[in-house]
């Protein structure tokens, strides 16, 4: 705020206020990439996708409107008989490209999509729960002033440096029943031991989960550890003086105090869950069958492989809505609260 004031002050000194748009010009110039990104990519491209999800685009996006001579057709019919949208009366533009919610109707009538959403739900719920629980538990263990804390932390966090592709391939290998854990245990003499989550349509999501948690819990642990360390030392002292057991202090006092860290973690994990793509591609490509399909795979397939853009757009719009469901309460919590202070 003071910055803007200084700018104004220097302007008045020369007795000539520059027009508003020219004030602070260097700063505005520096922000051009951001403004362009926001307008063109984040707003423009998102809207584009949402709008085109209501069209019948196949391999190529269909033209939205055919231009008509303005006000040339005075016939007042709002809805054309074939169900397409007609803007003739108001704009002079005519469109026969829109198909209403057809794409969404088809989407929700597709088993693969339903399975994808179900998988995302299971994966999301488990990933969220386990990430938070494991992340917090590990952080609490590391917080106990242990020896080799750095070594443990280094080991737990390193997978985060690896890509999902690498993560997926390694775990595909370890979980391979012919070479991996199942074989090792069978070689030990347990002939009937079965552990092939990636080849079993009931457990395949959990197979992916194992790899996903391996990659991501380190980050959650780091966030949690930072959160725990950020808590006033005196709180710990107070609880010790009152004779409250350590675990109870974590559960009853520390966790409630870490609400912001938990919220942040939930948002980060949540945004990551909706985007899960590389990991599944590398581990199962959605199989066996369609049992490990995820929405992102459906979108990619429909958009590029099956040459049905609008269907892909509809699916990605639903993904967007899912994120919004996570994001809006968070934004409300974050920014609504700040206003009160």
């Amino acid at each position, binding site marked *: 705020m003071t910055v803007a004031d200084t700018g104004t002050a220097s302007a008045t000194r020369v007795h000539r206020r520059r027009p508003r748009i020219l004030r602070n010009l260097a700063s505005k110039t520096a922000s051009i990439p951001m403004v362009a990104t926001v307008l063109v990519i984040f707003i423009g491209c998102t809207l584009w996708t949402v709008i085109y999800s209501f069209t019948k685009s196949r391999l190529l996006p269909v033209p939205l409107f055919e231009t008509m001579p303005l006000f040339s057709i005075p016939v007042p019919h709002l809805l054309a008989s074939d169900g397409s949208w007609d803007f003739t009366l108001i704009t002079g533009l005519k469109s026969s490209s829109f198909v209403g919610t057809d794409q969404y109707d088809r989407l929700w009538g597709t088993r693969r999509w339903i399975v994808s959403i179900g998988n995302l739900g299971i994966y999301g719920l488990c990933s969220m729960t386990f990430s938070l629980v494991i992340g917090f538990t590990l952080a609490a263990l590391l917080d106990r002033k242990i020896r080799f804390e750095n070594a443990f932390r280094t080991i737990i966090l390193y997978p985060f440096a690896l890509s999902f592709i690498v993560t997926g391939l390694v775990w595909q290998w370890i979980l391979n029943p012919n070479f991996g854990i199942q074989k090792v245990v069978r070689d030990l003499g347990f002939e009937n031991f079965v552990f092939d989550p990636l080849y079993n349509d009931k457990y395949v999501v959990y197979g992916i989960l194992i790899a996903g948690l391996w990659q991501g819990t380190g980050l959650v642990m780091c966030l949690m550890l930072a959160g725990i360390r950020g808590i006033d030392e005196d709180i710990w002292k107070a609880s*010790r003086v*009152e004779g409250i057991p350590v675990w109870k202090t974590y559960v009853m006092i520390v966790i409630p105090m870490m609400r912001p860290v938990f919220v942040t973690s939930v948002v980060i994990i949540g945004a990551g869950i909706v985007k899960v793509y590389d990991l599944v591609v590398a581990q199962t490509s959605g199989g066996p069958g369609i049992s490990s399909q995820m929405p992102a795979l459906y979108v990619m397939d429909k958009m590029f492989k099956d040459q049905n853009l609008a269907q892909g757009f509809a699916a990605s719009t639903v993904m967007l809505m899912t994120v919004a469901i996570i994001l809006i309460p968070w934004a409300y919590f974050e920014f609504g609260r700040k206003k009160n202070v």
Partner: protein
Amino acid sequence: MNTNNFSVQIKDLDLAFGPVKVLRSLDLDINHGEFLVLLGSSGCGKSTLLNCIAGLLEPTDGQIFINGENVTWKEPSERGIGMVFQSYALYPQMTVEGNLTFGLRNARMPKAEIQKRVARAAEILQIEPLLQRKPGALSGGQRQRVASGRALVRDVDVFLFDEPLSNLDAKLRADLRVEIKRLHEQLQNTMIYVTHDQIEAMTLADRIAIMKGGNIMQLGTPHEIYNKPLNKYVADFIGSPSMNFLDGEFKGGAFVKGDVRLPMKGYEFQAAQTPDQAVTIGIRPEHVITGELVANAPVKMEAKVELIEPMGSDTLVWVRVAGEPFRIRVDGQTQLRNRETLTIGIDPARASLFARESEVRL
């Protein structure tokens, strides 16, 4: 020696963090019902000592007794202490009542008993209307009271305060200081109070322990500490504005520096015989005699005013004595001008004399 005579007794306490010694073979005996203040600048070890008493830090060596019981290896909660922290350490997600009762509920105390204790503490601290609020909705002073209340409900003999007022503004601090003093009057239990604020220390304490570098420099009543500091450090630390020091020689029963000579008549020496040696004399600005009273002063001298700092009730006057800057505190109503020459008087009985090398009171 019966340890039961003391409320808290510390014997030969050592604490080191790796190579850094924080407390050095420290002994301290605290009487029942005594209000003891641990005073010192930051890093002197006062909070460390308090944490050792509470059991929150483990000593490297030595013993701690509370009510005659050796608690060196005991958990903090088993020591019969209550503690109030600088940041109050209130549990932010619980109501005031929740904060007060959490420890008791955890110890599975009967509900009725908990009710009784909370009611009593709330009454004493006058926080009844706040019981259902959360700490976030309380003012600093209210939080401080709740923090005291949490110690109070534990119904223990020893209260530990770790700089409980230093997060408050000056006015509130003065008010709450009085409240703590009143609380002590009412409860009559032992209180150990850590602060870096000498006013708090002087006003609250039965005895003050001034600490530096992990040692207790002086343990005594506020009066002793103020008037008869045992060493130059304590002399310098206590009193505001701080004491004037002049380096000189002790020769034939008088302090000599250049052409200034102060016969130490009436000064209570620590030893019967004090040999001639290099010394430092300390004279508090408020003990310099000015105005009409100078006539009766044992020693008189002339000094030129160099700077005047009016502070309302008092005025601090900077002069030069024996070539050194020298502060004098005079009544705020005194009219003075720069470069005016002033006659000042000094009473050696109220001065302090320290050996230059050891900085120990002579």
